[in-house]
């Protein structure tokens, strides 16, 4: 590993984290000629390199046929390295509360295996406090970020359709793929209930946009990483070109300990440990950008204590770590007899839903304050570990063409035929909604526990409120209506109050945000309207930590737009000699 000596060069910018925010900052600043050092805690990864490719592998190419392992939480072929628990890197919880924390340690981070759902925030999403008195407003409006959404659409590529819905702004879209059979059925059923079903908006190339990337060949495996770069991963789309420009020096396996400051109270660089050689390093930089993911960034700030910043760096507001919030999530599956024994054809499509439902109701008429969107699944997918699991709860209920029924469970030829006739007839849906960010939901530094590197770990404290639970109840009611309306049988028992209506545990949806929020009041926020720390003008945060609220829209597209905007602000400020 290249060892940086104390008197080595001082970089223009040091970026911590190579995910959506860090990758975009590296890309944008490199293009402007800045000398950037990009530190990534995980190993190098390139979806194009056969060493790493899992795309297009058959399930039988793995002895566990795609089952989860403790190193691959979402299946043996999933691209994520890391997961719900990392060896030697624990975190703790305040008793009685709950938080699940997913960490991907690899170049590009979670953008390698995410769902590619790329939704712009709408005008209302920046001013929620004005609308319902809850939470806080962003210090920016949709008009401030719109030009950056436009640039991101064109730079990275996204498909969708122009719908003219006020709070679901249209983008610059590539053609959307035609819905699959079950999606057409969802659309028809939902229409009867006045629920809109429109083309989804995913960052997948249905047409080529440049020489460096290919276009989608519809294998429905985006989460495995794409060897032709047809979907958005920060590794392939941002980091690799950034390094190629010659202006970005990338160091992998670099676990940053803290941000360093000088006598003037400005950031002067970071210290990190090389995970392989265990050597300690110091990086000098004129500007420091944190994009280590929401909670890791908060952890870094809180661990960067000094006499000037006894409460952690950039934390005079005492807000770092607070207002942590994840999306709400609840789901239901169903079985549609009309889809049994249908014609076989390649139904893979893109790696995600071809249609979705944007929030369609008026919260003033409901008993919860914010909305959710609906995602859909189904189809004749590739079998893997878990196929047909639990058939005994269904095969006694579904009549055969002659009206007779099998006895639930069973064995032999008739069981084999049940698996065959049920294939492709399962469907499901999931809601992803907006939670209210609360000061009482937070992560802080555990006073006694350190990880194997000696870095103090995070302690979480998080409880859903009634708002989120009622929203989940509404989801379940909606899902059951839609499934029934399409001639389907909702599966299992309808989740009720005892399970919070199936509301996923905090952190399980992996959209956590808010721990270093933007705001116009330095007493109640960490960052100003340019992702710049109020207290430390050469320190920026461009990951999910910056989010004042997160809408019912997956936050990646907004992270990208804000990071590009903050990077251009830095370039502008440098020209004016303010930085």
């Amino acid at each position, binding site marked *: 590993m290249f060892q940086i000596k104390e008197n080595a060069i001082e970089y223009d910018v040091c970026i911590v984290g190579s995910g959506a925010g860090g990758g975009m900052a590296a890309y944008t600043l490199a293009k402007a000629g800045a000398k950037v050092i990009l530190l990534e805690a995980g190993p190098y990864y390139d979806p194009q390199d056969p060493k790493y490719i899992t795309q297009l592998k058959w399930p039988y190419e793995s002895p566990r046929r795609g089952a989860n392992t403790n190193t691959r939480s979402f299946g043996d072929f999933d691209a994520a390295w890391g997961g719900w628990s990392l060896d030697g890197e624990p975190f703790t919880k305040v008793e009685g509360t709950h938080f699940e924390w997913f960490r991907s340690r690899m170049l590009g981070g979670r953008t390698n295996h995410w769902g590619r759902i790329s939704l712009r925030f709408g005008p209302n999403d920046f001013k929620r406090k004005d609308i319902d008195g809850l939470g806080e407003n962003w210090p920016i409006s949709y008009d401030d970020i719109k030009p950056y959404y436009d640039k991101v659409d064109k730079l990275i590529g996204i498909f969708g359709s122009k719908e003219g819905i006020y709070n679901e702004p249209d983008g610059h879209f590539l053609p959307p793929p035609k819905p699959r059979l079950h999606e057409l059925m969802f659309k028809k059923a939902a229409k009867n209930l006045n629920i809109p079903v429109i083309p989804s908006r995913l960052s997948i190339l249905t047409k080529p946009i440049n020489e460096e990337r290919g276009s989608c060949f519809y294998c429905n495996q985006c989460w495995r990483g794409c060897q032709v770069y047809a979907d958005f991963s920060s590794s392939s789309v941002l980091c690799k070109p950034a390094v190629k420009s010659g202006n970005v020096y990338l160091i992998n396996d670099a676990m940053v300990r803290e941000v360093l*400051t000088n006598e003037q109270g400005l950031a002067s660089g970071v*210290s990190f440990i090389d995970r392989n050689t*265990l050597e300690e390093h110091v990086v000098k930089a004129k500007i420091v950008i944190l994009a280590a993911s929401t909670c890791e960034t908060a952890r870094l700030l809180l661990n960067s204590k000094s006499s000037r910043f006894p409460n952690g760096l950039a934390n005079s507001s005492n807000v770092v770590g607070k207002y942590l919030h994840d999306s709400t999530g609840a789901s239901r599956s169903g079985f549609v007899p009309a889809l049994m024994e249908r014609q076989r054809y390649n139904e893979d499509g893109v790696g995600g839903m071809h249609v979705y439902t944007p929030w369609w109701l008026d919260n003033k008429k409901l008993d919860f304050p914010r909305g959710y969107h609906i995602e859909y699944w189904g189809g*004749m997918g590739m079998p893997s570990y878990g196929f*047909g699991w639990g058939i005994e709860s269904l095969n006694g209920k579904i009549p055969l063409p002659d009206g007779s029924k099998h006895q639930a*469970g069973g064995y032999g030829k008739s069981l084999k035929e049940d698996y065959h006739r049920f294939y492709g007839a399962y469907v499901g849906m999931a809601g992803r909604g907006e939670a209210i960010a609360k000061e009482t939901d937070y992560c802080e530094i555990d006073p006694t526990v350190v990880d194997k590197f000696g870095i103090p770990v995070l302690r979480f404290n998080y409880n859903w409120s009634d708002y989120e639970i009622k929203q989940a109840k509404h989801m379940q009611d909606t899902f059951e209506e839609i499934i029934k309306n399409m001639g389907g049988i909702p599966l299992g028992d309808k989740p009720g109050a005892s399970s919070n209506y199936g509301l996923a545990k905090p952190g399980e949806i992996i959209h956590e945000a808010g721990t270093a929020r933007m705001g116009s009041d330095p007493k109640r926020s960490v960052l100003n309207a340019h992702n710049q720390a109020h207290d430390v003008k050469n320190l920026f945060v461009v990951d999910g930590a910056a989010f004042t609220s997160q809408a019912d829209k997956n936050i990646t597209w907004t992270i990208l737009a804000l990071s590009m905007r903050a990077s251009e602000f830095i370039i502008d400020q440098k020209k004016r000699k303010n930085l």
Partner: protein
Amino acid sequence: MDRRDLLKALSLSPLATGLLFAGMDTAEAKELEQSLNESFPQPDKKYEFANGRTPEEQKRDEELMKQKFFTDRELKLISVLVDIIIPKDEKSGSASEAGVPAFIEFIAKDMPYIKIPLRGGLNWMDVQCLKMFNKKFLDCLESEQLQLIDKIAYPEKAETGMKPGVSFFSLLRNLTASGYFSSEIGIKYLGYKGNVPNKWDGVPQEVLNKFGLSYDPVYSKN
């Protein structure tokens, strides 16, 4: 921390300077090196990123493959059972032809919490057969074997005393389905047509007609 203090601290760090092993005997040093390796596993030079696996995953799977869990007799019993669950017919091969027994053994090693349910369930089967026919399962006639299986294959009508067998058989059925339908034989039997680069152009027209569905004009503007 400001940078000056940090550099002072770093120069004292034993890991950075190797002072750790100065003045120690070989046995002590070796023990310490081992404990360091536990916290900070050094990449085994034998393994590198390959085939979509990390070095740690390759090492783990190689070691799992070497292990043996089921006895030959148990594997034979599993083979007979999975072929009862998914037999050969005119359309496709049997579970054992699709490699299901070896798959189940790997899963038992990979997910150790099913070791006892599986081994215990196999023994339970033998005990029931001894009670019913004075022979263990493999030594029974097929008609005798099916008599026992009929008591545990139908969860909704099984007697209370048979519930351990129901639980075991359901687990075995689930594992058999996982192993069968994720095999080449099983995938072909289901008729899955994907996992190949292609151009998706929507549901075939004859299927749309059958379901009385059609596409919005927005999709014709490609």
